[in-house]
């Protein structure tokens, strides 16, 4: 038995309610009534179902995020926590999300979590990382017995057998699946692969639910390497798809996305080898051309060329000299001929022809040009046209 003041009692009640896990994260289905939006922006209403009702409050920040404010009489799913308003001594549902009741509880939960994580920035495009081009180690988080794993391994075997696959087995559905996925993710983070695939084959929304859990989303967000989600079929979207760096529609597609095709790789190698050949051939051709250029230049400067040139010059000189000499001989011959003609003209023979005679002293053959020259009785030789005969100088003229 205890005695409590009212405030002690109310505070005890509040603490009691707030310590209860279920009451702190609950969806309540009911009909909205007495809806009232205060000027502060906060909304107050009552949720009713049959004869039961509970007061509800939705703070302005949450109300602002609602797609539309509920109307009185509308059937809704409200998410929030239950607490005790001590001032009035009232139990109250503090609502942070309202969905039309028609969408179903799981869908409403999905949207609520999605909106919250999105607001927190877990889906930001700016933090999406590109996948590695040539991953060496590919981590796979999936059921070790599921078809998804076999699909992934088949794709990788065909496309990219160079890789090493680290399978981190987990439970992908049922109670404890989310925790199991988280554990498998962290085990992979320790093993440090180059890329991670989180996969599960198709199933109902309940089957895929582990991948809509907040702990899974946060664990995926914490991945130190790019993460690809391949959960369910193409039409299924789970929270992890938004968090993943790349979303693949199926497990096989996820495997395709992380793996380059070995045929393309072989083609790339062949292309590189060809480029290598081409670059080398061009390099050799450049070298050859450079060499040819040098050879041509050196040939121009070779002594052989000079010798050849000099020899030519010499030949030319000789030819010119020969020509000059020949010319000179001919000239002289002509001149000689002229002189001979002149000489002939001057020859005494011609005079003799005309009847003159030449008188020489017999002693020395000198021509007598004056009557006093020879002594009396000196022998002379007289030459006329027909020949020479002797004579003697007489006294007196």
């Amino acid at each position: 038995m205890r005695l409590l003041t009212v405030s002690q009692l109310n505070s005890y009640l509040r603490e009691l309610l707030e310590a209860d896990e279920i009451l702190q994260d609950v969806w309540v289905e009911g009909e909205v009534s007495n809806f009232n939006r205060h000027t502060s922006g906060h909304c107050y209403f009552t949720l009713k179902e049959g004869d039961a009702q509970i007061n509800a409050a939705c703070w302005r920040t949450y109300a602002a995020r609602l797609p539309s404010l509920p109307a009185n009489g509308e059937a809704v799913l409200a998410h929030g926590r239950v607490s005790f308003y001590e001032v009035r001594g009232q139990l109250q549902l503090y609502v942070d999300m309202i969905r039309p009741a028609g969408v179903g509880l799981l869908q409403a939960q999905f949207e609520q979590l999605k909106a919250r994580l999105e607001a927190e920035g877990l889906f930001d495009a700016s933090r999406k990382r590109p996948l590695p081009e040539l991953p060496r180690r590919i981590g796979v988080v999936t059921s070790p017995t599921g078809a998804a794993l076999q699909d992934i391994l088949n794709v990788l075997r065909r496309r990219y057998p160079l890789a090493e696959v680290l399978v981190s087995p987990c439970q992908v559905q049922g109670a404890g699946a989310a925790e199991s996925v988280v554990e498998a993710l962290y085990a992979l983070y320790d093993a440090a692969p180059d890329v991670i695939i989180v996969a599960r084959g198709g199933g109902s929304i309940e089957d895929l639910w582990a991948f809509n859990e907040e702990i899974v989303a946060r664990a995926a967000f914490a991945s130190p390497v790019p993460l690809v989600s391949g959960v369910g079929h193409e039409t299924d979207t789970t929270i992890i798809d938004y968090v993943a760096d790349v979303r693949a529609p199926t497990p096989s597609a996820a495997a395709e996305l992380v793996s380059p095709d070995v045929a393309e790789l072989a083609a790339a190698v062949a292309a590189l080898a060809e480029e290598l050949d081409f670059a080398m051939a061009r390099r050799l051709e450049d070298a050859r051309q450079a060499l040819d250029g040098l050879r041509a230049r050196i040939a121009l400067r070779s002594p052989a060329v000079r010798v050849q040139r000099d020899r030519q010059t010499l030949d030319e000189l000789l030819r010119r000299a020969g020509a000059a000499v020949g010319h000179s001989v001919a000239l002289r011959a002509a001149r000689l001929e002229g002189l001979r003609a002149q000489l002939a003209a001057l020859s005494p023979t011609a005079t003799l022809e005309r009847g003159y005679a030449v008188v020489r002293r017999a002693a020395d053959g000198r021509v007598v040009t004056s009557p006093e020259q020879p002594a009396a009785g000196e022998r002379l030789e007289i030459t006329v046209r027909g020949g020479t005969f002797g004579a003697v100088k007489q006294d007196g003229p």
Partner: protein
Amino acid sequence: MAEQDQTYEALFARMQEIVAALEAGELPLERALALYEEGMTVAAACQRLLDEAALRVQELQSGAGLRLGAEE
């Protein structure tokens, strides 16, 4: 270099380097020839790795206890 110990990624990267170096065309001829030979060897090693590769699959031990968790 021991090609057996080289990963495909490293070999491929080396090949790209070699081609780039050759295409830059500023190497002494002897060096270029040596690089060319290396490049051809590396290309063959790449091709061999691609031809002979077999996917290695390893299961992490940490989650082994969860193997019974059924899917489908």
